[in-house]
């Protein structure tokens, strides 16, 4: 099994190398100018040269996405628990949560930027709006779909509502919460980028998305690709971290959940 995993990793590495090599070859042989399509070497060079601009931008975007994700985990999880505990709250708030989810963030972002003066806060809020729903709805599903026979058992033993929540519903919902969090992780980044586009914040606090736009205006294609590369790597890193968190929290106790990557 282990050797098969190694072979797979080697193959995917070769594939990436082949793609990059092909890209560079096409650009060189086709004599495509850098302002239309820069080759990977040029992109790497731009990344190195512009690191003083792109590095801080990366940190800004990661901070916004990270805060939004934390808020989504806390807010989504907590709201799901409240809704699971109270039918009234569920009837009142679920439609609201669904509505927030279906309205595109691009259309809300300008409003948020008007009402919330602190720009970073506004950006986090926008990213949170996008990231919040998967955690929330997955957790709610997990809380509500517990084994009916176990519920009978809890009734038989005279468990209180909070005991049922603590001993049955929260542990049942944990894998669902984590699966939702993995979806939200990617969405937090998307939300941060979209919000930055809408805000167009320049200066020291500019994020990657703004640098991407800015590079586009200047026809600095290598820098644009470099910013894009950093965004992609951020997404992969968030995904990987959340997968690690999932494996660590589920561990030996949740056998079937451990298999998926």
């Amino acid at each position, binding site marked *: 099994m282990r050797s098969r995993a190694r072979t797979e990793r080697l193959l995917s590495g070769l594939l990436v190398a082949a793609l990059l090599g092909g890209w560079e070859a096409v650009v060189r042989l086709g004599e495509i100018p850098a302002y239309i399509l820069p080759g990977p070497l040029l992109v790497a060079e731009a990344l190195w040269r512009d690191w003083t601009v792109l590095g801080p931008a990366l940190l800004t975007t990661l901070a916004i996405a990270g805060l939004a994700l934390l808020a989504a985990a806390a807010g989504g999880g907590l709201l799901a628990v409240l809704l699971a505990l109270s039918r009234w709250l569920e009837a009142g708030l679920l439609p609201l949560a669904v509505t927030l989810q279906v309205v595109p963030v691009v259309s809300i972002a300008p409003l948020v930027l008007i009402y919330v003066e602190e720009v970073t806060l506004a950006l986090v809020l926008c990213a949170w709006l996008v990231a919040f729903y998967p955690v929330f709805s997955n957790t709610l599903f997990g809380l509500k779909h517990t*084994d009916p*026979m*176990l519920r*009978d*058992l*809890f*009734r*038989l*033993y*005279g*468990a209180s509502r909070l*005991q049922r929540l603590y*001993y*049955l519903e929260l*542990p049942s919902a*944990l894998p669902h919460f984590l699966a939702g969090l993995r979806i939200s992780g990617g969405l937090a980044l998307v939300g941060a980028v979209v919000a930055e586009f809408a805000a167009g914040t320049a200066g020291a606090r500019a994020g990657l998305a703004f640098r991407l736009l800015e590079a586009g205006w200047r026809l600095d294609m290598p820098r644009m690709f470099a910013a894009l590369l950093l965004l992609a790597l951020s997404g992969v890193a968030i995904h990987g971290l959340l997968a690690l968190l999932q494996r660590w929290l589920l561990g*030996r*106790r*949740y*056998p*079937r959940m451990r298999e998926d990557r």
Partner: protein
Amino acid sequence: MRPDPDTLAALEEVAFVYPNGVVALAGLELRVAAGSFTCLVGPSGCGKTTALRLLAGLLAPSRGRIRRSMRGPGEVALVFQDPTLLPWATVRDNVELPLRLRRIARREARREVERALDLVGLGEVADAYPHELSGGMRMRVSLARALVSRPKLMLLDEPFAALDEITRFRLDDELLTAWGSQGWGVVFVTHSVFESVYLGQQVLVMTPRPGRIAARIAVPEPYPRTPAFRASERYLRLCSRVSEALERAADASA
């Protein structure tokens, strides 16, 4: 039925109709005495499980009366066909659950858990998770969880039906041993005629839906019962009496 201090729970002329209109039980009479072992056999869908859930107090009858001498939680224990364990909790934590829910002091709870684990021979695997155990072992955990609260009434719903025969025979014997030392009243639902005669002091045969008691067959065999009983002529004669009663009940309703 006369009131009886010995009675743990009794169903009197109980009918149960599900919200979708299915009549599960009609005029069921059932009395469980302290320390008794009653087996309930009947065709699938005859309302055996409904009867158990009524006895457990998880359902209220549509008509008729239920008398229960037990009040506190943990006095009734229920074992399902599926072990129904918390998958994320160790064997020990699963068995401890009923005591936790009753907020029993940790030290005392641990002692009771060890006792229950020993009773079903699970002391070795107390720290394993359910998915790391075989089906028979998981069922033992389920039994230990039922035992741990020292119930007065033990309700078992085809508990060993999903296990292979060798494991089932062994668990039947272990259940009898535990019953002998603990002395709860037992209602054991099964669709196996052979199992019912091997275990029970009496076998109640139910009609197809809507269920009621079609026949009561006493099993006058003393305990402890041994595999030799399974090979005896008395045993086979009782089994055929139960089978005949089942067939008669099915014919009468057809």
